[in-house]
Structure formats: C-alpha cells, structure tokens
C-alpha cells in the first residue's frame, strides 16, 4: 500500500472537520423541534431565542396530538398513498426511463420534448380540477395518486442513468433474442439500482409531503393524508395573517408545543426510510477504502 502524503493527511482532517460542522448545523433544526415539543408550554411561550435543551419536560403536547382523530386517519391514508404511489411511480418511471433511453427510436426525442414541455406549461388549477372531476375521481385517493403518477423530473433522472449503461451490453442481449422487459430487468435495472433507489426515495418523500392535491380533491376529512392535517395545524396564523381582517383575528391559537409535537409525529416515520435505502448509496465508500 502507498503511504499517505502529508497533503492527503491534512485533507483528511479538513474533510472530517467540515463534515462534523455540517452535521451540527443540519441537525439543529430537528433538535430544536424536538426540544420545543417536549417543553413546558408555559415556559416555551416566554422563550425567544435558540433552544439548547427542552424547557422543563412535558409530554402533554404529545398526548393532545394523539387525541386528535385526524392524526390517526392521516397516518393510515399516508401509508396507503406512499406505498401505492411509490410503487406506481417507480414502475412507470423505470419502464418509461428505460424505453426513452434506447437510442434507435425514431420518436424518442419527440416524446422527450413533449414530456419536458409539460414541466413548463400546464392548464392551471381549474382545468386540471375539472379534468379530475370528469374522470369521476373527486373525493377518492385515486385523485391524488393518478394525476401525479409520474414526476417528469424523476423520469429524466432515471433515463439519464440508463443512458450511461454501455450499449454493447444491451445490444448483445438483443442479439440473443431477449425481449425488452427481460433486458430491462436482467441487465439495465441492476446496473442502475442506486438511481432506482433515489427515485424510490424521491417518490416516497413526495407522497409523504403531498398536501395540495389532497386539499383540492378531497372533501371527507377521514381521507386526508398526514401532511394536510399537519399543515392545517401549522398554517393557522402564519401566512394568512397578512390579509386577515385585524379585528376578527382574535382566536386562541394552538399552543406552540403542540405544533412542534405535530411536526415530530408527522416527520419521524419518513426519516426512518433513508437508512434502509442508504446501503445502495455507500458503495462509493468501499471504493474509497480500497483506494486508501
């Protein structure tokens, strides 16, 4: 093995220091939310500044969050949306991305252009709503799933990954007479697996956070996803305050600690997903280790 040069050692230390600083900085928002959620409501209201620990310790906020029936419905609905939406999105995106990465299709570029076009131009809220209404999807979970089944951005990412697979591999399989699905699943997919996992993560997180379509298309509060329930609790006085009639604004707001508890409850489950997918991204680390 080659010995480390002095420059490399300095770099290593520098690298680690940067990473530690970034970790502290990026961990803080979550810590802040967690601290606030466990804080005593009375003391939290009196506090301004940056929390470094919970003020007192109280689980009262969590008790009232779990007493809210919407939270439980929300969990169930979100779970359905995330699982179904991610499965559908990933399947369509992988197949679509693969097909559009094949080089000898005459219509490939036309289709790509037409698809990219939709990232920029759309009909706007009302025609989109009427379209969903005509399809009879209003007030169903399908209204949230289908109109956003494919994310064009993800499709482009996926296609880019397939493009970098050497043509020779695919062509030799074609010569062997394998059909395209077999080539996709046997050859292309394993090579692009890290990107597929990125897409899985993107879809899952998007579904987890999605609230706008739910708000527009759903009427029955029992069908609301968690993100919408969360938003309803958080939004009450933030952005609306600028136009609100001042006199009518006299309403008791939800206590601060409850707001933060809701954020924790609504965020933790999706955070857990990452470590599971992470193993697909860390191959690079092993390369680095070998390099050393």
């Amino acid at each position, binding site marked *: 093995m080659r010995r480390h040069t002095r420059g490399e050692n300095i770099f290593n230390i520098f690298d680690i220091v940067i*990473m530690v600083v970034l970790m502290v900085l990026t961990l803080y928002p979550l810590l802040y939310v967690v601290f606030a959620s466990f804080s005593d409501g009375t003391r939290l209201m009196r506090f301004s500044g940056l929390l470094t620990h919970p003020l007192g310790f109280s689980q009262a906020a969590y008790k009232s969050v779990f007493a809210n029936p919407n939270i439980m419905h929300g969990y169930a609905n979100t779970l359905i949306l995330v699982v179904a939406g991610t499965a559908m999105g990933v399947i369509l995106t992988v197949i679509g991305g*693969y097909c559009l990465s094949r080089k000898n299709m005459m219509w490939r570029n036309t289709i790509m252009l037409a698809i990219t076009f939709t990232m920029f131009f759309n009909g706007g809220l009302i025609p989109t709503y009427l379209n969903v209404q005509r399809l009879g999807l209003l007030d169903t979970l399908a209204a949230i799933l289908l109109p956003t089944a494919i994310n064009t951005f993800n499709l482009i990412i996926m296609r880019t990954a397939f493009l970098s697979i050497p043509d020779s591999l695919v062509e030799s399989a074609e010569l062997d007479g394998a059909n395209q*699905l077999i080539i996709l699943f046997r050859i292309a997919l394993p090579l692009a697996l890290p990107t597929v996992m990125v897409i899985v993560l993107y879809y899952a997180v998007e579904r987890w956070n999605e609230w706008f379509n739910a708000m527009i298309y759903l009427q029955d509060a029992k069908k609301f996803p968690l993100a919408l329930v969360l938003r309803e609790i*958080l939004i009450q006085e933030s952005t609306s305050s600028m136009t609100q009639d001042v006199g009518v604004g006299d309403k008791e707001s939800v206590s601060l600690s409850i707001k933060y508890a809701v954020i924790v409850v609504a965020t933790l489950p999706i955070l857990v997903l990452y470590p599971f997918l992470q193993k697909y991204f860390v191959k690079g680390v092993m390369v680095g280790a070998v390099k050393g």
Partner: protein
Amino acid sequence: MRNVKNNISKPRYSKPFSVRLKADFRRNKELYLLLIPLIAFYIIFKYVPMYGSVIAFQDFSPRLGITGSDWVGFKNFIDFFSDKSFIRILKNTVIISFSSLIFCFPAPIIFALLMNELRSKIFTRSVQTITYLPHFISMVVICGLIRRFTVDTGFINDIIAFFGGTRSTMLNNPKLFVPIYIISEIWQGLGWGSIIYLAALTGVDQQLYEAAMIDGAGRWKQTLHVTIPAIMPTVVIMFILKIGNILNVGYEKIILLYNPLTYETADVISSFVYRKGLLEQNWGYSAAVGMFNSVINFILLIAANKLSKKYTETSLW
C-alpha cells in the same frame, strides 16, 4: 439486426418517411408498447387540461369558465410589463436565481465528492443521514429559525459582537437578504441534493481507480480524472434542468423572510403575484405571468440542452 440498425443510422439519404416510420415501428414495437401507459398518462393528465393556458389572454372568471370569459388579448401581459414593480421583481428574481445557480447548485456536488473521500463507513452514513434532515422540517419552522439566528440578539450577532462588530437585525438589511436566502438554501438542501450524486458515484468503475493508481495518480488526480467525468452526465442534466427553472423562485420562503424594508431586493415575481392574487384574485393575470415565466424558462432550457448536446453529448433529447 445489425443491418437494420445501420440503415436507421443514416436514414436521411436512403428512405422516405413512411418507410422509415414502418421500419422504426417494426424494430421498436416492444418499446412503443411499453410506453403506452406513460404516454396515456401525459395525454390524460397533462395535455388534456392544457387548453386552460388560454386564460392568460382572458379576463377570466371561474364562474363563467373559459368559454364564458371575455378575451382581452395581451392585456394581462402588458399590465404585467408596465407595472411599476416589474423591473424590480424581474431583477431580484434573476439575481436570486443566478446566485442560487452559482452557489446552491455546486454545493451538493462538492459535498458528495468530499463525502466520497471519507474513510469510515459509519461516519459517512451518519453524515448522510443527518445532513439530509433539514429538508424534512417544514418551511415555516426553518424560516422561524433563520429569523432567530439572524435577529440582533441572535447567535450570529453574538459572534459579530464578540469580535467587536455592531449588532443588527440582518433580515432588515436589503443587502443581506440574498446572502441569507442563499446560505439557508444550501443549509436546507445540501444533504438532500447530494443523494443523486452519491448514487451516480456508486456507478464509477473501480478498475478505473486501480488503473489511475498504477499510473501514480494521487487522490486529487483520481477525483479529477475518474470521479468527476463519471458523474458528469448527471451534473449536466441537473444543470440543464436548473437553467430551465431560472425564473422560478418559490414564494413561500420569500414571504416568510421578507419585510417592507427588504422588498427592494427580496420581492420576486412569485411573491408579487402571490400578494396580488390574495387581494385581487385576478386569474388571467397570474396565468399570464406564469406563461411569461414558462416561455423564458423553456427557451433557456432548449438553449442549454442544445449547447450541452454539442459539447458534452449529454442531453434531454
């Protein structure tokens, strides 16, 4: 098979359109078949409602619908261009966008490369898992924290005061708005944005590193000649997409951070339309502004794609 391919690759001279069409379909039948669900999706959910864009040329009222509303030609566009704030919001939007392109775009790439050089697997995993957290905290909370960090009695001012500077609320200073916006953007998006590059890094062929080492390349050289070229297609595509977003600066973060003292640098197209929308509910106008943004963005994207095709061989089409 080989022969067919060779014919296709230089069709311009050899075959008329209908013949090429047939040949193409015969050859790629399976691919087209597989694309049916995708194409159906784009037609049903994207292209069918697209007739709605015409409201940019209407005095649109939801109650009357598109068929019932009055046509006003380019009035909405003219109103927008002749608004007293137009120059200001366009300038601010472009400044924020370009700053974001210069600083926010490369940050996750550099971060991914730095992470790639870490030795400890557990440490790498921890860095990844923690740095992506801010992406999940709601914008209202993040902006609340930014305010608390930058207020005159806040943490950053404590440091400034420690070194003998004077305290000031940074968000009241128009000159500091863009830096605060950009730095916080990096803070929020660094870890999340790096994931795509990390995935690309895993695809780098290990043999290339070994070959480079045999050639006596140090880590810097390896990064330069092996790692970066390997993730270049992803970088280029992300860059093209970012160019196609240049006029889209989201309103949510802006309206949570700006105040009347910083309008002059902070007010952007989207926040302007947001304020107007709340008070005036002018659908046609909002649609016109949206269309203006889209046209500019789309043109820029096409240009970027063309340049990229010419120089890097990576492109969207």
